[in-house]
């Protein structure tokens, strides 16, 4: 966000954003590796070295299904680099930054909802266990959902504020 003739944000803050973007570009592939590699290992064990009495196909499906929420969460983190690119350019309250932030929040909340509400009953179904007993989120999961939805609200609010700022600037021009 810059004003004509006066730059309220110097390159120092933009450099913080650049360092953060570089770290994010390194960390995101590591995040995917941290999720995919154990999943591949678990898949191998489920398919070729199943526990006695368990169905290898069902256990392999359980591993795949349980990997969906963390992968979705990691995928939504890709929007982080877009947000930080905007901050690096000094556009802290731009529509692009706010929309990207909102999308990250939406992806995160969807991943959380899947992890807490959808995946446990699905896993119970695959294992032949009681579906309703599996729907028992703990308090920490509820806290995290509340935190993610509040963060998403921050994204929506910033997006609306950025729209208003853009409209004002367009009117001045």
């Amino acid at each position, binding site marked *: 966000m810059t004003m004509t003739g006066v730059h*309220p944000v110097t390159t120092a803050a933009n450099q913080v954003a650049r360092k953060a973007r570089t770290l994010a570009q390194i960390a995101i592939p590591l*995040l995917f590796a941290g999720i995919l590699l154990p999943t591949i290992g678990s898949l191998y064990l489920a398919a070729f070295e199943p526990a006695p009495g368990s169905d290898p196909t069902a256990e392999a499906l359980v591993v795949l299904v349980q990997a969906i929420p963390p992968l979705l969460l990691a995928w939504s983190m890709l929007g982080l680099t877009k947000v930080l690119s905007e*901050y690096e350019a000094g556009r802290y309250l731009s529509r692009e930054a706010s929309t990207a932030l909102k999308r990250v929040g939406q992806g995160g909340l969807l991943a959380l909802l899947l992890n807490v509400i959808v995946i446990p009953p699905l896993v119970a179904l695959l294992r032949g266990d009681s579906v309703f007993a599996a729907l028992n989120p703990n*308090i920490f999961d509820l806290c995290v959902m*509340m*935190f993610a939805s*509040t963060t998403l609200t921050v994204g929506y609010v*910033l997006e*609306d504020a950025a729209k208003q700022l853009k409209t004002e600037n367009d009117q001045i021009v």
Partner: protein
Amino acid sequence: MTEAAVAPLERAQKLAGGAATVAVVGAILLVLGAVGREIVPPAAEALRSAEVTPDWRGALNLFAAVGSFIVLALPSFILAGALLDLSKVLDEYGKGQFFTLRASAGVRKAAEGALWALGFKIVGSPTIYSWITHEGRGFIWHMEPFDFGLIAFAAFVAVLGRVLEAAARIKAENDEIV
């Protein structure tokens, strides 16, 4: 300023104000839920099992029973605190102050609180619990793949908060000069 320009801002402020209230109420309910679900039942069980007697030993038994489950519920309490930090951010947004030091610092503090909560959930609470209940002496990890993603999510919000705080601090200094 036309109505079209004002509408998104008013909507943003109303949304922020409402969400701030919801966040505070949510934090209180979550704390009450954590107490009611994770601390009261074990304490009641300890009372019923006659381990708690009206002397120092009984008091210590009750303290150990309640204290160990408070340790397990600690991540939820820390995350409720992070929700209160986010409610302060939304409060600032509700007043139309979108790019202030207070709002940006609030985002950073909330995310750092979430990271602490995850740290306690994964390693802190299980380890301290095992030490209190004499189940072990080393460090205990309870990490699922989803926790990895959650750490990344909280770290992302913390990074954004730090960047916004740096920018807001410089803007505040420049505004003072002007």
